């Protein structure tokens, strides 16, 4: 299970062991996403397939954090939810790939 507590990514394994993920790039991504979707929730249950474009936007902001800062952008609720799903998948994939 991956959670966001006090702006830190926490991974809890099946045995209940807690590990903090110190990853500056992911932390920056979450900060950038806060500019767009306000309330960033990290929860595996949110992972559901969305259109490719949402994954691309997350990947782009991960690679180029300034991309989110160039304009004031307001997404409506539905695209925000999809961005959140794509963000969760991105973070989950990154962390689980590393864990393996």
């Amino acid at each position, binding site marked *: 299970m991956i959670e966001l507590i006090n702006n830190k990514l926490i991974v809890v394994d099946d045995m209940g062991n807690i590990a903090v993920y110190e990853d500056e790039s992911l932390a920056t991504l979450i900060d950038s996403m806060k500019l*767009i979707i306000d309330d960033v929730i990290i929860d595996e249950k949110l992972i559901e397939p969305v*259109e*490719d*474009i949402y994954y*691309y*936007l997350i*990947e*782009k902001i991960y*690679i*180029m954090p300034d*991309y*989110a800062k*160039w*304009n*004031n*952008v*307001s*997404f*409506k609720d539905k*695209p925000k939810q*999809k961005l959140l799903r794509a963000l969760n998948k991105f973070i989950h994939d990154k962390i689980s790939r590393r864990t393996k």
Partner: protein
Amino acid sequence: MIKLADVQNNYLAIDFFLTMSCNKDCHYCTSYTLEQRNLTVDMDFLRSTLYYLRNYKVRCNLLGGEPGLVKNLDEVVAEIKSNPNHVCEILSNSTVRRRYPQVLKDPDIIYVEHFILDFYEHEISLLGPKSYDFHDENEFNNYNLVIKTPNFEKYKHLYPKEMKKLDNKNTLWKEFNGRAPDFNEIKLNVQAAEIDRKMCAAFPMVPVINFENKNIVHCSKKFANNAITSKEFEITQENIDKMMNFRLFKYENYCKGCMEYVQPKGHFPLKKYASILNE
């Protein structure tokens, strides 16, 4: 009067390849044939295409080939302008200026002329009838288009007068694309970042409505280069809706190997994605 910046920020561009015929054979261009064909646009096809696009903010780029050769260009322009969601842009080698001068007086049409993109053409103009001069600064949305080709970079210092004339807000400067084998000022032999190519694939700089085959073509670069057949789709309401919402085009094999120039900032700012995804 429309503002170019507004159109660039808020409209999705689609290339309308009205005809592939052209009356010039510019050395940098691959998107033409000297055979004169399809010079009358099928208005029923145009109307149905515009109807499918009726709810979307679209910048309709009329090109080809040379749109100035189209016999019913006036009719085409009037049809596009009849929907306030659509902006008409014409890219011409100056034939439009000669045959349809009224276009230049209409500030609601973005008129872009590329009769001198490259100083190579300067030599051509000495051989044939004199071309028109560059557009001065104006409020009619008439623009010079200069693509910074290798020749442009190589010879621009020899043309200080021309360079000064081009130095105004009505000149659009564009990077050259990947058709050059090598040029050190912009690294053309380096691929754009994969994420930028993926985003470009989702909605290319300009997808194409091909008036010859009457279909949608994924990528205008591939279409114009004639090198690799770009994916084609039938023109239906469903496909247009998918296209305008980033669900029609995928990251194809030809995108993976694409060497075209893609702006590092991505060709869409985030607010443009937001405006479309918010619909």
